[in-house]
């Protein structure tokens, strides 16, 4: 039997001497960057095509990279639905994007997305990124991962939903909700960048151009 130990200080010891790393991690949008691929047509669960530009609200746009299978998404999905549905009423457009290759996880297929959207009562589009190019353009790496843009299309919040995936009642930092409310009210977003563990996005293979 293996033994399990807590680890944090060991990480601190190692990570303080980090050097440049050779990695294929995508370059993620930074605060102030404009949303890419706004005019790309994406298939929504209602069967219609929609673009990010069409989903935009007068006060801004919330884009959440999501999926069906990921345990972290499942823990947060009701909160994502609540925040997204509320954002619509506040003048912030919302679109959830599934960039996962469903051949990796059949649960992420289009039919399953339709069922999930209905179960959650989503009042915003839940669309398929059929080439995963939207995720690549944003530098999105995990689900769930949120990008909030202001009315000018500039990124004002990037990160996770809140500080407690497992227990919504124990959340102390409702980062995304606060960001949306601040944007809608014309205030500065209080915490603009956050992180949490999540599932890696299972990108489709790039197709030859």
């Amino acid at each position: 039997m293996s033994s399990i130990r807590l680890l944090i200080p060991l990480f601190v010891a190692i990570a303080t001497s980090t050097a440049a790393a050779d990695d294929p991690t995508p370059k993620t949008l930074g605060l102030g960057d404009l949303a890419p691929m706004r005019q790309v047509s994406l298939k929504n669960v209602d069967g219609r095509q929609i673009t990010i530009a069409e989903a935009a609200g007068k006060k801004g746009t919330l884009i959440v990279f999501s999926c069906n299978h990921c345990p972290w998404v499942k823990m947060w999905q009701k909160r994502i639905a609540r925040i997204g549905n509320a954002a619509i009423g506040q003048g912030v457009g919302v679109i959830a994007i599934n960039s996962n290759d469903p051949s990796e996880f059949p649960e992420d297929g289009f039919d399953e997305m339709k069922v999930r959207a209905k179960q959650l009562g989503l009042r915003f589009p839940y669309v398929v990124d059929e080439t995963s190019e939207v995720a690549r353009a944003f530098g999105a790496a995990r689900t769930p991962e949120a990008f909030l843009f202001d009315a000018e299309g500039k990124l004002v919040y990037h990160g996770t939903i809140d500080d407690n995936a497992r227990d919504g009642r124990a959340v102390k930092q409702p980062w995304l909700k606060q960001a949306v409310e601040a944007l809608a009210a014309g205030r500065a977003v209080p915490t603009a960048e956050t992180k949490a563990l999540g599932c890696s996005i299972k990108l489709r293979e790039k197709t030859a151009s």
Partner: protein
Amino acid sequence: MPAPAREILALASRRRARATLVNVWATWCVPCREEFPLLLRLAREYEPRGLELLLVSADFDDRLPAVRRFLAAQGVTDTSYLKAEDDMSFIDALSPRWSGALPATFVYDGAGRQIAFWEGKADEARLRKSLEEALAKRSSMEDSSP
């Protein structure tokens, strides 16, 4: 088992590995489970050359029985670790460029310098290249020492 910071830091400072491979995983992460056999195979292969594998579960503490079962099924007998701080601190301490996506793999040389980092399932060719690079750095340091 919870351990005070000084104990863990003492453990870290006692390490004599020529290279360290850190993998952050979770029992409910399918790609994490899929890449496990590769990590263990490479760890065994490179161990005689001084590689140490540190497996870090990001499971919640109530999943500890499942973590133990998985490790036992994989034949892991060495000490493994469990993340025990908030996500953001944990992620940024390992790498500010890490989004938090699992699995995540980090390769360090013998001096504790991060040689490689990536998110998502590990690729064997990439792992080997990084491990060779990490081990070579240590060797070159030894060659140049008086």
